[in-house]
């Protein structure tokens, strides 16, 4: 009899302990709304973060991803998609979420290091193997015999970085000013036969349809295209100078406060700055901001002069208005003929 009772008691204790354990370890779901080329990066990072968070708190965290054109993704959040964090292609899109829907505090970009940019990137050239047209610098792209592939800067956040890189190059030439820079981008875009709506679309046009001599691409997209379509088909060309592309991240304040996920969302972004997050970013061809990790991957990321949007264009709000708004510099390229 006693043995049965002891056994029963043991079973009850076990059951209680299990129940207590279940109650303590929560299941948390986060939604990260991101832009197009980060699929591979966040697939790796989400797994690493879940492991880290479980060992730290015991909670299971599942991060769901949403990818698409940066502007479209921002609009979904404005229109009510409940994102805990946004990781978009450019600060302007997060500014719009903060300004229009008031979902994010206006000073969001000061809340995390490096302008809330845990990893950076730049715009480079992807050319056909052996670089048959000898493309070395931005000036080559405006030559009459060159065909350039890029996405439409009006619809693609990435293409805006590419356009601004070209414009910035022209500004930085001896005697460069807004007039010469406009002339330069007009000549460059006269060489563009197809304007896809997104960065991935233009990669496909260049790589699969075989159109164009050079593709303006995110550095990480260029590496990815080589990995995807074969390193024997394409070469990556680094111009001597390009733009420092900063894809920023932010916690969506209104959503995390409502869902009670602020702590984990904050940790999710901060861990991106940690050694493991930086390592994953570097392995996915994003430039790490951590000097130690950057040193380890120095071979992948050649040094080039990188100019910033703040110094060259006075920030995103101004660049957006001058260049990409309706009737702006980019529209004038096509309507002033």
């Amino acid at each position, binding site marked *: 009899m006693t043995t049965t009772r002891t056994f029963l008691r043991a079973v009850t204790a076990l059951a209680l302990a299990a129940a207590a354990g279940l109650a303590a370890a929560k299941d948390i779901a986060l939604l990260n709304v991101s832009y197009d080329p980060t699929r591979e990066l966040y697939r790796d990072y989400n797994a690493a973060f879940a492991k880290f968070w479980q060992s730290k708190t015991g909670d299971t965290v599942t991060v769901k991803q949403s990818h698409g*054109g940066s*502007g*479209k993704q921002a*609009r979904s959040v*404005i229109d009510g998609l409940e994102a805990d964090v946004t990781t978009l292609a450019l600060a302007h899109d997060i500014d*719009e979420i903060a300004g*229009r829907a008031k979902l994010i505090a206006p000073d969001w970009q000061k809340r995390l290091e490096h302008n809330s940019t845990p990893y950076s990137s730049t715009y480079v050239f992807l050319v056909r193997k052996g670089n048959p047209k000898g493309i070395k610098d931005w000036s080559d792209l405006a030559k009459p015999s060159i065909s350039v592939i890029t996405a*439409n800067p*009006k*619809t693609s956040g990435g293409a805006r970085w590419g356009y601004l890189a070209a414009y910035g190059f022209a500004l930085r030439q001896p005697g460069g000013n807004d007039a010469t820079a406009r002339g330069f981008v007009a000549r460059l875009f006269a060489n*563009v*036969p*197809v*304007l*896809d*709506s997104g960065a991935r*679309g233009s990669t496909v046009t260049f790589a*699969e*349809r*075989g*159109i164009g001599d050079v593709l303006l691409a995110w550095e990480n997209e260029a590496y990815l295209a080589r990995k995807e379509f074969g390193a024997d088909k394409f070469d990556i060309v680094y111009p001597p100078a390009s733009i420092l592309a900063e894809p920023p991240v932010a916690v969506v304040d209104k959503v995390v406060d409502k869902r009670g996920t602020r702590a984990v969302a904050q940790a999710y972004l901060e861990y991106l700055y940690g050694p493991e997050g930086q390592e994953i970013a570097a392995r996915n061809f994003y430039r790490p901001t951590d000097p130690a990790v950057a040193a380890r991957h120095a071979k992948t990321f050649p040094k080039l002069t990188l100019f910033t949007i703040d110094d060259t264009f006075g920030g995103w709000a101004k660049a957006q208005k001058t260049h*990409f*708004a*309706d*009737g702006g510099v980019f*529209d004038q390229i*096509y*309507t002033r*003929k």
Partner: protein
Amino acid sequence: MFFSRALLKRHSVLPGFDLALGFTLLYVALIVLVPLSAAFLKTFTMTWPAFRETVTAPRVVASYRLTFGASLAAALVNAVFGMVVAWVLVRYEFPFKRIVDALVDLPFALPTAVAGIALTSLYAANGWIGQHLARLGIKVAYTPLGVLVALTFIGLPFMVRTVQPVLEDLQRELEEAAATLGATRAQTFRRVILPILTPALLTGFALAFARALGEYGSVIFIAGNMPMISEITPLLIITKLEQYDYAGATAIAVVMLVAAFALLLAINLLQAWTRRRQGR
């Protein structure tokens, strides 16, 4: 037109004219009018000069020309070749006819993006068809011609499926009678068959045309999207949205809606007129 026929019919199958009409109005209001009036309301946040400037900007006007022009052309191509396809499917027996018949419906079911990508890889300068055309100096993908190809593809089933049942009902005896009265084949077609087919052809034409106007998914892959040349109006609407210009986007949408409605109404009136002329 279905509506007017239902009104004229005395002994309706559906019970209660009032009930049926009330239901119809409510249904149309909920499904069609409410979402569309939302577009109109959003537009009213703009001032008149701003509206006019948005919808008459050179890029936008160029896109109307392409969208309406290519949609009309595609519907016309389908009117001719869709009728031939329907004729063959109804009148002749051949191996795998059922399969061919089912294939006609594929553009209905295929996600438009898939259609766009498939057509682009076929017609690009390195594609199966594109490379032969390139040798002749014809470029299809990334030109307005590509837009026409995509719109023709998605419009085909509308034409075939509206003409087919009418052809099936068409009595062969009519043609035989025409022949015994000394009509040539061309005369028989023009004076006997075509008048009977005209209402169905017009319906198919209107459906294919309307579908083409709104098409986005398949076209953006093949169009090349060059401003002033190969940008369709729906793409400009999306572009406006990307810039958070909701009012501007709906302004263009409203112009498209009004123009499309006017054209469709004209086609429906034409159809009613041909019906009356035939004394049906």
